[in-house]
């Protein structure tokens, strides 16, 4: 019975969380929006003035913006391809009976818990180093010319480092979904003579659609904001070859102290993320019923 008393009590219980999040959302957003309309550089205090949309023009016409937008899409897309395909295959494998399956599962999910600065530096030095890295040793052993991964293929290398961390996430979610698949359906199809490929295409895959969508959307939200891996490996370079939107805005704000341009960039980043967020929120909302 939701009496008037319990209803107002409920409101009191909810309000701290709502108020805190409201303040957290509105104040910084309003400030970003306001700064984005100012000429404001931390190195020239006291010279702030209203400039309309000049910061947006500056940010959006900067060649670095187009580069970083492309890099962001390549990074997000690359990691998604690796983790979704790899994660599906791995989940199908881990769903099969085998000896020590529980331990293999622990090994597979471990990379997810490695902090980004550790994984980036370990990969950068101990694997991708052009003289002493393990990859260099493997290349030498097989008779190939070793590659200086982060100098020659910076964005690709970062994509692989990030994908290593997110593959477990995709695997774990897809595996969880696989395990809720009704086995009798599969057995019936097999009795009717369906091969493993048609079982996968017509029964397993449709069952996984929802989990795959969740993986893609949630990873996209996080991957749009990849930052630490770039900071500790390439600093966005060489040139802008591995600069994504997050890193570009960071550089504008805390390396060039251009508050106005960085804020305009921040608004652009928020708009980009929102495109994804709308789909994700709708989907989760539908599930909430």
């Amino acid at each position, binding site marked *: 019975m*939701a009496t008037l008393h319990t*209803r107002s009590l*409920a*409101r009191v219980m909810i309000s*701290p*969380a*709502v108020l*805190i*999040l409201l303040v957290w959302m509105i*104040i*910084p*957003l309003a*400030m*970003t929006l306001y700064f984005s309309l100012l000429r404001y550089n931390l190195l020239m205090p006291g010279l702030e003035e209203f400039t309309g949309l000049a910061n947006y023009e500056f940010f959006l016409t900067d060649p670095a913006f187009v580069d970083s937008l492309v890099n962001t899409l390549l990074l997000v897309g690359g990691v998604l391809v690796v983790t979704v395909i790899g994660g599906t295959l791995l989940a199908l*494998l881990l769903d*099969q*009976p*085998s000896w*020590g399956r529980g331990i*293999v*599962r622990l*090994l*597979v*999910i*471990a*990379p*997810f*818990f490695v*902090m*980004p*600065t550790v994984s980036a*530096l370990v990969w950068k*030095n*101990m694997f991708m180093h052009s003289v*002493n890295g393990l990859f260099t*040793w493997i290349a*030498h052993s097989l008779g190939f010319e070793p590659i200086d991964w982060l100098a020659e293929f910076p964005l690709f290398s970062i994509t692989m480092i990030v994908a*290593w961390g997110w593959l477990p996430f995709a695997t774990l*979610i897809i595996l*969880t979904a696989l395990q809720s698949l009704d086995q009798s359906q599969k057995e019936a199809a097999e009795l009717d003579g369906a091969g493993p490929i048609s079982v996968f295409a017509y029964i397993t895959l449709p069952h996984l659609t*929802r*989990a795959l969508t*969740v993986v893609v959307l949630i990873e996209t939200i996080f991957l*749009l*904001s990849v*930052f*630490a891996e770039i*900071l500790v490996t390439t600093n966005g370079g060489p040139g802008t070859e591995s600069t994504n939107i*997050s890193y570009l805005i*960071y550089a504008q704000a805390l390396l060039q102290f251009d508050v106005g341009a*960085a804020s305009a960039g*921040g608004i652009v*980043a*928020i708009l980009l*993320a929102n495109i994804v967020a709308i789909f994700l*929120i709708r989907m*989760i*909302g539908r*599930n*909430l019923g």
Partner: protein
Amino acid sequence: MSSRVFPKRKLIFTVVGWLIGITLFFPIIWTILTSFKTEGTAIAMPPKFLFFDWTLENYFEVQDRSNYLQHAMNSVVISLGSTGLGLLVAMPAAWAMAFSPTKHTKNVLMWMLSTKMLPPVGVLVPIYLLFRDFDLLDTRLGMVVVLMLMNLPIIVWMLYTYFKEIPGEILEAARMDGATIGKEIIYVLAPMAVPGIASTLLLNVILAWNESFWTLNLTVTDAAPLTAFIASYSSPEGLFWAKLSAASTLAIAPILVMGWFSQKQLVRGLTFGAVK
């Protein structure tokens, strides 16, 4: 298929599974092994896998180079503090939404979720300036607050999905038996809510421990947690791989163990209940 197990098939899946598992885990093994080498052995070509003189010196040197224990303590304080504070704010809210939902409950939940979609870089400038003006840069308090705000939506959501599973009838039964509200909470609800609260705590400590946007941008030394401390190895300084490995091993070991214990909750927490 479970009625008929093909031993040959099972053997193949076992071999392939272990090969992939060990390959994916290998960077972690390699980090741990390297942490026990001397700096000279760490860069040896061809690399030494198991047969080298094992040493613990790196673990001591990590502490000498920079105050490792202080950074570890910062990580502990920031991750536990932000999660604890978050739970304190989120628990009443999730409780109320689960047990006396109104027609707005769903909208409130969705809106909370949408705040999580805000890319942190979008508010980097104002948060940085506010922190500067309020003297919060490089302080534990500042980091506790920011990470609490970052994780609050996840905490509310996780708690909500757990509380939602506590059957309401059990309350009515307790009430029929003459339990007061206080007794109801202590003897009936709390025992049922504890596992959900514990999983929420676990997952959010992990997330806060590994958070590497705000910790890198808002701390320098005093309040720098392990993420920022490890990042300081990005500027090369002679031979440092063994020391980096020792520092990394210490930074990831506790959280890896916690992660392994929370693998079930992980799916639920990170998908906001969309996949269970």
